[in-house]
């Protein structure tokens, strides 16, 4: 019974494909991938609509107000109203803008975000686009975001856009390093770049109780925190949203966009957030596996989306809690702290592996991380507490 519910979507797909029995193979393949693409878009665009209203609700609760509550029950139809508003808004293109580049930038950024969503396993046998080097694909395609942001900034022919794009690219390139290097320990331990294999490696339970998710090892916990923070930066979320800081440079690379193009940027940002969280779940939080063995009767995709919702809630929570940090603080943090810690995670994972992956390995890898963390904190401590503020460029 639970087996058939678990595979319900696959069975539905098989049923749809059975209508094509007798047609040529290439047609079945094309229709099969079209079904995957359609399902992916349907699920994540719905989730985008939901999170856009839920984020406003949660932020409102954090700030002790009500949030949107006029459209539909509890304001749940707000995204429909927003969508209609965005669609009928005038699409303004600046006279001096580079029309083609200005138009292509939101298209490219959304395409990249959707492509990266394709390699994540959403449930048992439920990977829309299953390839050998899935993790590599994720980062390779994701790196095109920088080019899209640059196109947006340059194509708008506006100072604020260009400055915002420069900031965005600088922070993306800097934080891509800790993001990728914090993935390395998992790839090393599993010995595969395939997301399905990584999820399969976290299937068992220690003593039949604690799941063997990588986040429960010292190197995994440290790498997960690094991954999560870098993911915050990559998706341009508060506290790292200097690239679109309203108080400084209007809206950064999105300044000259209006109407649905602006909505596309907004959507791409959220899809990127889903993709990074999904990859984090796959790598560290056991993918679609249940946290306890007796709960395994609940379908795998429900577990995946439950974990995704939890992570998305943390994203919103962080946004509601922390102020934006300065550009130079952010860069220093990336190069002086995040990067060395990410390398430490790699070494700690190696220590864990060579000490037999048991209690001894746990202790040694914990020791490696603790020593480096303490040393780094002591080195980076400026010892200048409450010093008077010094202005270098303004009197």
């Amino acid at each position, binding site marked *: 019974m639970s087996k058939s519910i678990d595979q319900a979507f696959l069975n539905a797909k098989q049923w749809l494909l059975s209508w094509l029995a007798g047609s040529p193979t290439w047609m079945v393949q094309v229709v099969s991938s079209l079904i995957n693409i359609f399902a992916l878009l349907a699920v994540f665009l719905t989730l985008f609509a939901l999170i856009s209203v839920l984020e406003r609700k949660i932020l409102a609760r954090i700030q002790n107000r009500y949030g949107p509550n006029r459209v539909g029950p509890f304001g749940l139809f707000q995204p429909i109203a927003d969508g209609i508003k965005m669609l009928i808004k005038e699409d303004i293109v600046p006279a001096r803008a580079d029309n083609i*580049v200005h138009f292509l930038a939101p298209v490219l950024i959304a395409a990249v975000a959707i492509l990266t969503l394709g390699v994540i396993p959403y449930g048992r046998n439920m990977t829309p686009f299953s*390839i*050998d080097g899935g993790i590599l694909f994720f980062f390779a395609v994701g790196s095109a975001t920088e080019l899209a942001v*640059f196109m947006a900034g340059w194509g708008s022919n506006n100072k604020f856009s260009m400055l915002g794009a420069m900031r965005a690219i600088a922070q993306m390139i800097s934080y891509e390093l800790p993001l990728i290097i914090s993935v390395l320990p998992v790839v090393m331990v599993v010995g595969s770049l395939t997301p399905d294999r990584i999820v399969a490696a976290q299937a068992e339970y220690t003593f039949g109780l604690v799941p063997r998710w990588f986040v429960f090892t010292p190197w995994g916990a440290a790498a997960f925190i690094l991954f999560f923070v870098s993911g915050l930066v990559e998706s341009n979320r508060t506290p790292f949203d200097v690239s679109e800081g309203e108080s400084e440079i209007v809206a950064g690379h999105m300044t000259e966009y209006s109407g649905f193009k602006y909505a596309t940027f907004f959507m791409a940002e959220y899809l990127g957030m889903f993709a990074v969280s999904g990859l984090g779940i796959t790598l560290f939080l056991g993918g679609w596996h249940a946290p306890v063995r007796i709960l395994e009767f609940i379908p795998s995709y429900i577990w995946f989306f439950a974990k995704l919702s939890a992570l998305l809630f943390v994203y919103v929570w962080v946004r509601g809690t922390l102020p934006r940090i300065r550009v130079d603080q952010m860069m220093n943090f990336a190069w002086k702290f995040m990067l060395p810690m990410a390398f430490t995670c790699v070494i700690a994972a190696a220590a864990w592996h060579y000490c037999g992956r048991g209690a001894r390995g746990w202790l040694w890898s914990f020791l490696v991380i603790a020593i480096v963390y303490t040393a780094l904190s002591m080195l980076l401590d400026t010892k200048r507490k409450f010093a008077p503020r010094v202005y270098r460029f303004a009197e």
Partner: protein
Amino acid sequence: MNSAAFIFTAIFTVAAALAAATLRKLMHAALSFAVALVGVAALFFLLGAEFVGLALVFIYIGAVAVLIVFTILLTRRDVGRNRGFNWGGAIVAVAVFGSLTWSILKTQSLAIIAPHMPALTVKQIGAALMTTYVWPLQCVGLLLTAALIGALILVMEEKR
């Protein structure tokens, strides 16, 4: 290889490369160059060389293309201006194309039917890099680290 897919990808790549060579605005040319690289990566995918295709996208779109557009942005003041026909560039391009065609036609392996190669997985490439080619890999790593530190020293603020 699927010939229809190959022809489509080849036309796409050549068209993007032609656009990169002939477009009037320098920034458009740089962006078309990135599109051409996507086409080359697609060709690698069609050949079953997944890793090479992904590495190409990773390095060339994610890093080299961004580097090129930034170089244009930071060094040229006439980004939007028309540039004339570049004869030197045309001669270099024809020379490179000619030498490549000549060397390809000279090779013997074209006449022999290639043996069926098993698809190379990322794992095999990783194993080869870490065993047979570990010294070259480490040397490249050392060189790149030295280059990184050198770049940092070049831009480091001078202490007054």
